[in-house]
């Protein structure tokens, strides 16, 4: 077997998902993007219902103006690490604003959301420590475990009792364990039982880090996430998040009530050995953060759309990954071809969504993922629901 033979299976999968003359359902190229909810794909206008642009801030006028002004005054990139020539006042200002929003003292900005998990987890937990992670964690968490020298133990997805047993087995050593959960899991759109997980973690003397990547901006009075909404901020140790979803940029962060987080700058390889985020991104994100904190209007619009869509999905008989309405609606299909036909049918009707199949999803769960935005108009939501209704009717007729 030669070096490249192992890619043959991927080549076959790529072909099955659409290759050559057929539009690929993976990495679908967007020729033009006109707004937070509208783009051109293969010459056709589509409603974007498969992004993470939950508040629609990629096209916010103030954020765009801030980015342009920062580029004009400070250039397009930093060309250096935060530990070298890439440490600008804007980075520090954003870190202080993020930590301050939580009422905490320490905050660190990373160049991507992926690196936020990679950088925070791999540095917080070292040799002799334990990373206790939910089994359905995002790839960035699994990769952080591989980079860390800590022992990695997984507990059953969203199962507090299973976590309790694993921490109990550790005894006194649980004080060196960092429990890692996501508040909202983006594949199925289900939420972690955060109150129970927090209680169990603290009862065993362990530490808790919550990834609010898909909930920051959407939950809580100030949009800080599910921990804020559930009143848990005084018990959680660390929160990580991303700029590339509700904040409409790219980058990530970790904030904490523990001042020692600051020292990660000297220990976290994904923080040190990469270029810092460029001025335009930082300026737009800083502006977007203010918009999130004062964004009750955006959240109200988004949740109105969410409840409308979930109600219609139930009426139309779709199997949805999570019964609790949220910004992500995962339509679950047993067969890959069935899911692909649904994805293609939606695209043909002018609705762009995401197709997710094993091994990115559990076996037997082929998913068409719909995500909504506060920037969607009522007419666009009507259009999405109309396309879903037509496809549901077609399926009933065919069967």
């Amino acid at each position: 077997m030669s070096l490249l033979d192992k890619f043959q299976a991927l080549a076959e999968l790529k072909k099955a998902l659409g290759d050559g003359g057929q539009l690929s359902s993976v990495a679908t190229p967007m020729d033009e993007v006109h707004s937070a909810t509208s783009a051109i794909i293969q010459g056709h206008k589509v409603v974007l219902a498969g992004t993470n642009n939950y508040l629609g801030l990629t096209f916010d006028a103030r954020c765009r103006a801030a980015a342009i002004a920062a580029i004009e005054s400070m250039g397009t990139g930093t060309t250096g690490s935060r530990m070298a020539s890439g440490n600008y006042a804007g980075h520090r200002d954003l870190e202080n604003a993020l930590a301050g929003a939580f009422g905490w003292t320490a905050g660190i900005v990373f160049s991507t959301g992926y690196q936020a998990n990679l950088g925070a987890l791999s540095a917080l937990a070292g040799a002799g420590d334990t990373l206790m992670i939910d089994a359905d964690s995002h790839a960035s968490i699994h990769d952080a475990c591989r980079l860390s020298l800590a022992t990695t133990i997984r507990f059953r997805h969203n199962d507090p009792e299973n976590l309790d047993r694993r921490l109990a087995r550790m005894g006194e050593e649980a004080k060196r364990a960092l429990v890692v959960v996501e508040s909202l899991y983006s594949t199925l759109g289900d939420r972690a039982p955060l109150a129970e997980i927090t209680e169990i973690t603290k009862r065993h003397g362990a530490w808790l880090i919550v990834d609010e990547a898909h909930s920051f901006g959407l939950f809580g009075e100030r949009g800080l996430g599910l921990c804020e909404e559930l009143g848990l901020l005084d018990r959680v140790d660390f929160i990580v998040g991303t700029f590339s979803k509700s904040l409409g940029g790219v980058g990530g962060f970790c904030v904490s009530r523990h001042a020692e987080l600051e020292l990660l700058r000297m220990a976290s390889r994904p923080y040190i050995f990469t270029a810092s985020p460029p001025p335009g991104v930082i300026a737009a994100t800083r502006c977007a953060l203010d918009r999130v904190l004062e964004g009750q209007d955006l959240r109200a619009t988004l949740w109105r759309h969410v409840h409308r869509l979930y109600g219609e999905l139930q009426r139309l008989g779709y199997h949805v990954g999570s019964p609790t309405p949220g910004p992500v609606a995962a339509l679950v299909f047993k067969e890959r071809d069935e899911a692909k036909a649904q994805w293609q049918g939606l695209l043909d009707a002018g609705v762009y969504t995401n197709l997710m199949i094993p091994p990115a999803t559990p076996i037997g769960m082929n998913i068409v993922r719909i995500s909504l935005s506060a920037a969607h108009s009522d007419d666009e939501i009507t259009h999405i629901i109309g396309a879903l209704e037509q496809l549901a009717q077609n399926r009933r007729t065919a069967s």
Partner: protein
Amino acid sequence: MTDTASTVEKVVRAALESVRPDAAGISGSTDLTSELGLDSLQVMDMVMEIEDHLDISVPAEVLADARTLDQLCAGIMRLTERKSA
């Protein structure tokens, strides 16, 4: 084979069969991924069955070192010995 080793092998085989019923009676030298075709989620489900039966936690590093059924049993054995030490 010691009593503990026998128990561990029984538990591991039972856990394997719970995720892959067609794997009953496979050789201990069978590669669990390249030969049997277990995917990462099946491996995880199998390991969680083992953990619950033996009341141990299996670190991900132990799994990374175990390609075959025999290697997995050996890794689990070391964990049970450490627990009872």
